């Protein structure tokens, strides 16, 4: 009943190819956007901003990026942390070198710098495939983190090796630094995620996205029908790194404010969690990127609250429990639904079409 498409006719190609062809989806999405833009900014407090909303948005961005590369183009990458570090450090260098540049422009330029680095590290993918490539992308992870840790130019020769954000404003409201109000940082991330989320969705639906998927499904066959593997793989690497770079830039400038590269962009801190996001969310699904990010951001909070507050364990033991349960959930999830939350959602939609009168 709820998802009934009866009576909704598409009379031209435009409406047939819309992102949300169904009226129900259109309404739901508009409502979501209304709430996100017009309601949440007025009620958001610092806890929600720092613990849930901003990390969710930033990780969604990274998950979209990795999903483009791994989910749509089929190139497994474990180097997400490295590319996020590129975004963060180019933001820092740009901020300190050009103090007058608008923060939005800085973030986007950081994305482009990451894209260049991504192309460079994507080159081996033309020759190496599968798990060999996955391990090879670890080279970028370790090399980039090492580079930002060991070359003092990147952190402006500070003694601690930390990079710290300075205050930048958009329309007179600070969005970075300690003085930024919760709604400003939230809106800043939200705008970027919505704009680039739509961009990604449209890329996937157009020629470039179709060639990514052709390469993913069978690269030799794709090559034979005229999809150039070099160009396709490298654009996937570039665009994926662009998104990941922007998320790294936000992670540093808006979310953390100050960071140290080996700790914040470690393989266990970024690369694997983001990979879980897209697998738990659903490989090759935009919705999946968001669902996965939400799952991974919320899970530790829920677990921690449950362990420490309800059961009354000490923080250390709770941490160990958290790791165990986290791993267990992951395994259980992969066994029960290897195609992720997005698949669950489409099954639910299918059920909702006929609910409550199934035949």
């Amino acid at each position, binding site marked *: 009943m709820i998802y009934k498409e009866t009576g909704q006719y598409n009379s031209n190609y435009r409406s047939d190819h819309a992102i949300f062809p169904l009226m129900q989806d259109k309404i739901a999405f508009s409502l979501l956007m209304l709430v996100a833009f017009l309601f949440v900014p007025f009620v958001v407090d610092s806890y929600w901003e720092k613990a849930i909303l901003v990390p969710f948005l930033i990780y969604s961005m990274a998950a979209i990026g990795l999903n483009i590369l791994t989910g749509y183009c089929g190139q497994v990458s474990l180097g997400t942390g490295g590319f996020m570090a590129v975004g963060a450090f180019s933001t820092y260098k740009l901020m300190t070198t050009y103090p007058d540049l608008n923060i939005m422009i800085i973030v986007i330029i950081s994305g482009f710098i990451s894209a260049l680095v991504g192309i460079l590290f994507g080159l081996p993918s033309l020759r190496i495939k599968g*798990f060999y490539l996955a391990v090879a992308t670890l*080279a970028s992870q370790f090399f980039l983190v*090492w580079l930002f840790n060991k070359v003092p130019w990147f952190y402006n020769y500070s003694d601690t090796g930390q990079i710290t954000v300075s205050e930048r404003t958009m329309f007179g409201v600070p969005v970075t630094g300690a003085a930024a109000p919760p709604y400003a940082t939230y809106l800043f991330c939200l705008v970027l995620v919505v704009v680039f989320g739509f961009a990604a969705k449209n890329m996937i639906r157009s020629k470039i996205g179709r060639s990514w998927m052709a390469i993913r499904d069978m690269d030799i066959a794709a090559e034979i029908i005229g999809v150039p593997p070099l160009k396709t793989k490298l654009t996937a690497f570039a665009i994926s790194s662009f998104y990941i770079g922007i998320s790294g830039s936000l992670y540093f400038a808006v979310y953390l404010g100050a960071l140290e590269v080996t700790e914040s962009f470690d393989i266990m801190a970024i690369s694997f969690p983001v990979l*879980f996001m897209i697998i738990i969310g659903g490989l090759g699904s935009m919705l999946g990127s968001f669902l996965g990010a939400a799952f991974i951001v919320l899970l530790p909070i829920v677990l921690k609250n449950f362990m420490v507050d309800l059961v009354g364990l000490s923080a250390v033991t709770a941490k*160990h429990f958290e790791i*165990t349960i986290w791993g267990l*959930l992951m395994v259980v999830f*992969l066994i029960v639904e*290897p195609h992720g939350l997005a698949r669950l959602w489409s099954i639910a939609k299918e059920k909702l079409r006929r609910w409550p009168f199934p035949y």
Partner: protein
Amino acid sequence: MSVELLNFIETVLNGLMSGIMYSLVALGFVLIFKASGVFNFAQGVFALFAALTLVGFQTGQVPFSHLINELFGTKLHHWYPEIHSFLAIIFTIITMIVLAWIIERLVLKHLVNQEPIILFMATIGLAFVLEGIGDLMWGSDVKVLDVGIPSGGSEWLENATIGLAAEGSEYYGMYIDVLNVWATVIAVILVTALALFSQYTKTGRALRAVADDHQAALSVGISLRTIWVFVWAMSGFIAMVAGIMWGTESGVQFSLSLIALKALPVLILGGFTSIPGAIIGGLLIGVGEKLAEIYIGGLFDIGAIENWFAYFMALVFLLFRPQGLFGEKIIERV
């Protein structure tokens, strides 16, 4: 001989021996990948878990004591004084076998025929579970592991080589850790035993059959699931050996599980499916790393390039041989 040459030889020797340590971890990966096509990321955590369990048995810790104490307000810690290392090793081996059985029962069985990446992610999940359980069972403090393997520099070698340099030059002899020598000896024994086992026993032949072709192996009556339990138990055993070696060297702690990351370049360099590849890859990476640290790292004056150098080395090799040195040739058909 000149001092430079002697230093070079010392570096190469040390590199070979640390390479053996990498090979030990890579070996566990290869065994599992060959038999079940699973890229087992948990191999490093296996080593950590085995080492933790070994120390726990050795010192007679009560498992889960922290958890029980916090939940029930008791004060459990040890239930018996230390036992002999040999006995503890036997207990640990039994634990690893049980663990392999549980993993097959609860995880692998349900994931047959899934995409390789799904299996890979499942082993990452497994790594988290084992890490958490290991910490819950035995506590997360750094533990000293001592099963009676000597360690420290070899004085004999130092004295023997001190006279090799030219008269009057400042040379104090070669430094080689005895532990590494032991690791080499044990690794050689292990690999020989493995080779003999897979060549001359019935189970060994079944193992090779499964590695060669799952379906054909099934059709001649080999039980895949038994073989899987067997292979995972064997990897658990190898992980224990690696855990003992690395744990003796630097204490049993979380960072032990990161040796998996050290073994990955070895793996792609040697090829996922080749046991000799794992050994030779390990040796190459060990030597390359040590040489690079001294001769290239010194050049830039930044240091710590061993974090990524191995990966770069493996990457360069891969550009010429995409399946690794000894991997099966990748044949792609449409």
